[in-house]
């Protein structure tokens, strides 16, 4: 199963990111995770939110260019070697990781969460499931 990440185009100028988070805050969109890829001139803000429909509507109205990207979310036990085990599975399954980022999870104190952007979500999810690693579903995001 994959979850939906919202990717937003922002200029790399002072206040651009603040403008974006301001719009989201104003409409009570709860950010679960956020990561920024940037060049010296522009950036892509990648985020996982509680309510994708609401967030994209708000962004559209505010004039942001954005897209939805399927990503794989994994809850990783907060113990040494946790991430390593997941990467091992993906490597064995020959799943190419385009980028990844972490966030520390809401109510669960003993888990960290990783978001993986992979070439093939289905293969990644199946490989992880076969080794007993559960991936996050979209519905679960809101209750994290």
């Amino acid at each position, binding site marked *: 199963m994959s979850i939906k*990440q919202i*990717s937003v*185009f*922002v*200029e790399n100028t002072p206040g*651009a990111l603040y403008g974006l988070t301001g719009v989201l805050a104003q409409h009570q969109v709860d950010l679960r995770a956020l990561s920024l*890829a940037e*060049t010296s*001139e*522009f950036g*892509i803000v*990648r985020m996982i939110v509680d309510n994708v429909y609401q967030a994209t509507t708000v962004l*559209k109205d505010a*004039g*942001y*260019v*954005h*897209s939805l*990207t399927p990503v794989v979310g994994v809850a990783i036990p907060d113990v040494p070697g946790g991430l390593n085990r997941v990467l091992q599975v993906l490597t064995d399954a020959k799943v190419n990781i*385009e980028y990844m980022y972490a966030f520390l999870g809401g109510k669960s104190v003993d888990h960290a969460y990783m978001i993986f*952007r992979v070439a093939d979500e289905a293969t990644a999810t199946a490989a992880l499931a076969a080794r007993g690693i559960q991936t996050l579903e979209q519905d679960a995001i809101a209750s994290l």
Partner: protein
Amino acid sequence: MERYYQPEIECASREQIRAWQDERLVKQVRHAYDHVPYYKKLMDDKGVKPEDIQSVDDLYKLPFTYKKDLRDTYPYGLFAVPMKDVVRLHASSGTTGKQIVVGYTREDLDIWDDIVARQLVAVGATEEDKVHISYGYGLFTGGLGLHGGATKLGATVIPVSSGNTQRQITILRDFGSTVLCCTPSYAAFIGETLHEMGLTGKDIPLKAGIFGAEAWSEEMRKDIEEKLGIKAYDIYGLTEIMGPGVAYECSAQQGMHVNEDHFIIEIIDPETGEVLPEGQQGEIVFSCITRQAFPLLRYRTRDIGVIHRGTCSCGRTFVKMSKPMGRSDDMLIIRGVNVFPSQIETVLLNHGYSANYQIIVDRVKSTDTLEVQVEMTPEMFTDNMGEIERRQRELVEGMRSLLGLAAKVKLVAPKSIVRSEGKAVRVIDKRKI
């Protein structure tokens, strides 16, 4: 079936057109010489007398007039009739310097209405049509120019004026506008907004558009036609000459017919002033041969274009001028290379970007720099950073091959490029020369 507003004129024989021009030019030169001291002086200084002009063949003997002449005689120094006969004034501020003022007699306005009506009929409009005018109304000739022609044709005029795009779209839908008149950049913007509202050309009854007052490319035409679901036509005019309608595009969509019963077009070498043969690119020069209040002769438009004689599939016999390549005023000389904003626009649209761009020219350590800022669009955005950068490099390559010049491309947020009165600010030249 091609329809004409004045078929006896628009499809007249070349001999007839030439006869009108000869007769009217001779009269006009006399009118200007006798009633405008400034003209008399210009001609006297060049040693030309009105009687030296016997036909169009003698046109080259007349001195050129420039925008500077209009500024120097501001406001009424080139008017050839008493103010009691002037029923309308229009003005153009231009991007540089003092504004210029032009005047119209009732007869001048009547001619203007006729030539705009010719354009409307050429794009298929009839008295059944609802003509939606989103050009600015006021001293700018766009709004009232199209308004007069559409009224004369007997169409239903919707004088919306420019701005408030949401409202424009509401009117397009609710009033059922069938012909849209505005600047091409504003048409593209309306199309874009329509698209954003989740609508397409199918949701509005619009069938044709008449777009002028800016240089625009064939690619932009396609973009507008697609987004609005219409046929897009070009119209040419300058406030100094009359306003929109000096030349008009027909169903062939390949160049604009010059209203030769009222204007004579010449293409000249902008450096030497020499008249160039047909088919050669140069500066467009116009002479008004019927205008009473403001008889401008051999006016240097600064527009770069080319003319083509020969028959047109539409049946009109007036000579055709190409879409101007750009203003010689707009022409930028960057590191010794001539660059027109319209060329940059072509590359952008060819690469899938929007026509919302701005060109910033600067000079850093005595070297000119060219930066093109272009708005990101949903179509060109992807989550893949590498892909965005690859498209950006392709664009830079495209510019290099077309312009022969390295440009920097900067992707900016949507709607961040300033538009004024629907007209995008295309060039910012920061060089201090």
